[in-house]
């Protein structure tokens, strides 16, 4: 039932993603942390769009700010953190269509109405925060009732939800410690989609799980998109996870989004030198026996962001302008081009924040 036609439906879903309307538009969101030494600019300028029914990946190494970014989007930042600027437009469905609301401007009452019904969040390590003395089914029911569903209706929905994530209905009677890590994670995901939200945000949903369990959880997420049409933002430092799952992805470095594109474009033809270095560092089973280069140097911390482009100290193609000015995330016109000696094919919708693509001195460097 699940296997039959799954492949066809999947490619259909991906096809449909092309002409989907935007669901969430993040515009220059920043998250800073106040300190006696001045603000820590943990997330400093991020702009991206997530479409309906889309699987969107947010990738980057530890410390790049991706978790903080989604917390900012979901209005979960607590003092001394604060959001100095930025808009997050969410297409809130209403009778006969939808209207965009700025999440940053909602009152806490409005946010409460939004959460779980329209946007769900599965934080990192949430499988460990299940109540150990409540049965799984009861915890899911609890979540639904808190958000306005009648208890009887909630109870009836539980077996259906468990089946959506590939768990048997008998699991509702078990306690968390009787389930394995992967099963707990799937139960949490089931709770997150209980009210049929438009968007689910999952932060590192498979870290700390064994590899075969990881596959099950990731395929569960893909299945949910097919079955419910829900859009999912997956935050993960593990690039192969994105390769296997998402439609489009964004790469973050040092608090800024530095590349956005379809997953094929990012892996086949990465634009930003950091993305290129990252993709080139992944060992591939069955690949040729040769040394991978890695990226020399150390990722900077919010205590001391480099000037200009934050990647310039580690970039093999750094130019003078890179030291002085921060590059802006720009959509690059599609088509073939040569950048720093590398032939690339830019796909539609691919954006990057790199002077090699935008500044005039780059044109000379690229030999264009």
């Amino acid at each position, binding site marked *: 039932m*699940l*296997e039959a036609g*799954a*492949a066809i439906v*999947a490619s259909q879903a991906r096809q449909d993603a092309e002409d989907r309307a935007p669901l969430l538009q993040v515009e220059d969101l920043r998250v800073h942390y106040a300190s006696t030494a001045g603000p820590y600019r943990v997330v400093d300028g991020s702009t991206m769009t997530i479409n309906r029914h889309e699987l969107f990946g947010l990738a980057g*190494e*530890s410390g790049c700010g991706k978790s903080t970014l989604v917390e900012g989007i979901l209005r979960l930042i607590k003092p001394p953190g604060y959001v100095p600027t930025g808009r997050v437009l969410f297409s809130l469905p209403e009778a006969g269509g939808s209207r965009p609301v700025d999440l940053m401007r909602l009152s806490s009452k409005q946010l409460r109405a939004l959460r779980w019904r329209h946007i769900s969040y599965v934080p990192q390590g949430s499988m460990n925060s299940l109540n150990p003395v409540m049965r799984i089914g009861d915890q899911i029911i609890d979540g639904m009732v808190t958000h306005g569903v009648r208890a009887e209706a909630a109870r009836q929905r539980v077996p259906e939800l468990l089946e959506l994530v*590939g*768990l*048997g209905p*008998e*699991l509702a009677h078990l306690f968390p410690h*009787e*389930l*394995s890590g*992967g*099963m707990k994670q799937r139960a949490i995901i089931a709770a997150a989609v209980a009210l049929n939200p438009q968007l689910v945000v999952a932060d590192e949903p498979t870290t700390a799980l*064994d*590899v*075969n*369990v*990881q*596959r*099950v959880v*990731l*395929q569960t997420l*893909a299945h949910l998109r097919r079955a419910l049409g829900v859009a999912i933002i997956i935050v993960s*430092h*593990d*690039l*192969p*996870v994105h*390769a*296997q799952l998402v439609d489009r992805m964004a790469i973050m470095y040092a608090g800024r989004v530095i590349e956005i594109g379809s*997953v*094929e474009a990012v*892996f*086949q033809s990465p634009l930003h030198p950091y993305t290129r*270095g*990252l*993709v080139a*560092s*992944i*060992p*591939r*089973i*069955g*690949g040729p*026996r040769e*040394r*991978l*280069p*890695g*990226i*020399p140097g*150390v*990722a900077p911390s919010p205590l001391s962001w480099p000037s200009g482009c934050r990647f310039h100290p580690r970039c093999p193609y750094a130019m003078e302008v890179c030291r002085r000015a921060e590059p802006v995330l720009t959509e690059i016109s599609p088509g073939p081009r040569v950048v720093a000696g590398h032939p690339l094919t830019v796909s539609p919708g691919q954006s990057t924040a790199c002077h090699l693509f935008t500044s005039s001195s780059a044109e000379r460097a690229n030999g264009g």
Partner: protein
Amino acid sequence: MAVSTPLLELQNGSVVFGGGALSRITTVAVDNVSFQFHEQPPRILSMVGESGSGKTTIARCLLGLAEPTGGRVLWRGKDICRLSSDEFRTYRREVQAVFQDPYGIYNPYYRVDRVFDVAIRKFGLASSPAKSRELVFDALRAVDLRPDDTLGRYPHQLSGGERQRIMLARAYLLRPKVIIADEPISMLDAAVRTLFMNILLDFKEQYGVSTLFITHDLSTAYYLGGDILVMEHGRAIEAGSVDSVMDHPAHPYTQLLLQSVPRPDPRQRWEDAPPPITWRRPATVERPAPQRRNSCLFADRCPYVMEVCRQARPRLFRLADQQAACHLHAETAV
């Protein structure tokens, strides 16, 4: 030609927890596992398995931090529990460790320099401070770290990748013969992982250092090349060269693991391939089966399970290119 004495050997190692006067429940963490490292040729052996498969317990036994309840750990042919204090000191020098946690391995009270100073002092490697500094600089260079950026700092001032590389530098300083690395890169970022693995490869090629590389990530095992040992619930269920085992895995569990590794290629996706075994099985089976001595522990999850699998424990059958503990291969075994 006489076979030389292995440098480091685990001989029928078993570790059973519990089962004393106060606890009736026994857990078999390691069940009759054997392998060896010879001085020549040096090799990298990747030990792969899920959490709870016994990998860390084996590492601790090899390092003398835990004692096997069955079998022995031999260093140059001698049981490590029976070494004289001089021999023990040499063993401690020749067998070095890199652990998983780049944070906890440093005493937060001291600067990172101290890990070198203690090693040099306790193993008597330098006769003067000048010589000592030379050794430290040399070690840092071998792992591509600059002394100015590293020495004199406290652990919290360095990144996880730098801290792990300092541990490698410390190991290098002691000129070990074997490095036992227990999930050394799982807490590091992708780019730094590659650097770390490259250093291990350099150590093997340039200094003849063997490594036991414990990992749950098959792609890192592939990258390092060499040999692989697949562990499941404390048992070694497949062994052979990385190329053979990953190209044609003989044990269904190895096949499951390989299927589950996310490939970094959007053109080769899972959804284009049939779902893995565990999806089809009832959900409750994901929990590990209770330990049974006389059966294959993978039987409950195996799509090819037969009668005999639940009645007799399969031994490591020797096949053309590898060994696999699976009754499927009982007939074709050499």
